[in-house]
């Protein structure tokens, strides 16, 4: 029940180098995920220790219900940081929610890092079609991060 042997026996690069490339990619993701998890856990522990979110919407009885609120009329739709600047200023002031959001942002960046790492690896292998393909994917991703949110059409 063996499959037919691939027709193009000529491998793009040899097995060892390809295996090395895979282990580099795997590690890029591992470090990203570990970093993100650690930051989120630190944020959670700090939130539990101080019993506070660091924002107006807090664990006090008066404001507890607003934690899961969704206000469609304001951006952000809840009381937590949603931009790089507000996260940075919140982290500097040691606000637990800002620390958690920083961890979430790191997680969000892991696929982008992974694409970037692939680009470097394909470039080292001088694999022209895949340098182009990866570059294109990276440009589309960066476009979606930095240009798309600025287009009024998307601000729903």
């Amino acid at each position, binding site marked *: *029940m063996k*499959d*037919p*042997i*691939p*027709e*193009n026996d000529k491998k793009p690069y040899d097995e060892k180098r390809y295996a090395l*490339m*895979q*282990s580099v*990619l*795997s590690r890029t*993701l*591992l470090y990203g*995920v570990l970093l993100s998890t650690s930051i*989120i856990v630190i944020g*959670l522990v700090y939130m539990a220790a101080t019993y506070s*979110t660091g924002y107006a919407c807090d664990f006090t009885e008066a404001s507890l219900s607003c*934690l*899961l*609120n*969704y206000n*469609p009329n304001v*951006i*952000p*739709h*809840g009381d*937590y940081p*949603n*931009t790089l600047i507000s996260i940075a200023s919140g982290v500097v002031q040691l606000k637990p*929610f800002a620390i*958690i*959001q920083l*961890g*979430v*942002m790191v*997680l*969000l960046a*892991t*696929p*982008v890092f*992974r*694409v970037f790492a*692939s680009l470097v690896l394909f470039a080292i292998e001088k694999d022209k*079609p*895949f340098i182009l*393909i*990866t570059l*294109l*994917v990276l440009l*589309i*991703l960066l476009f*979606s*991060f930095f240009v*798309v*949110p600025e287009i009024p*059409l*998307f*601000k*729903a």
Partner: protein
Amino acid sequence: MFLTSIGAGAIGAIVGIGGGLLVTPVLTLIFGVDIHLAIGASIIAIIATSSGGAIAYIKDRITNIRVGMYLEIATTLGAITGAAVAAYVNSALLFGFFGAILLFSVFPLLRKRNQELPQGVVNDSIANRLHLNSSYPELTTKEEIPYNVQGSLLALVIMYGAGILSGLLGIGAGAFKVLGMENAMRLPMKVSTTTSNFMIGVTAAASAGIYFVRGDVNPFIVAPVVLGILGGAVIGTRILVKARNSTVRTVFIIVLLAIAFEMIARAFGLMT
């Protein structure tokens, strides 16, 4: 919330879907979370499933990185397109339409549910040029399994559609990606699900920025979900490498049916 996320992460990592359609109803129906916040959390959950699962799958050389990168051009472009037209389309209609597609795509899968590896696949010209064909180490038989790739162009079209869907509905559309690779490119089942797992992170990232800036990503919900999903994904990867292709396909069929019915239920407003 944490425990459900572990389950969603494990299932998602095995069948190559983001678990968006598993997390969202639990958050809205059981925990009473607003649908927008649930979708925001599920987008992040998709990235967690993908990155968490891919660590092991790439290392075990089951993921086909070249196929993944090639198809990501189409999924990311589709995701942006989907986000652009989201305001102008009726999402109930979409859920119904795509739910029906999923339901019908179960039949070709059922016919080959006992098949371990695809037979008689010949590389097409794109696959030859880009060297998409590859091999993967099968742990159940301890063999290196070579495979060919066909339907590369058709798969690109399917992935563009899957991308539009994820941008529109805030899901990873992993089910459609697996179907595209399984039915058009005819990859071995495990290669399809792990490569889909590899891709959904990038597709979700392409629309996650928009959700994050809008403030749909609530740390109070997302923190337990992310940690649970990551833990679940690690468990899922351990299960997949030891499972047979036909077993993975059977689990995929069950999840596919569940998702199809959920999408149709949403279309008729039975579920928010």
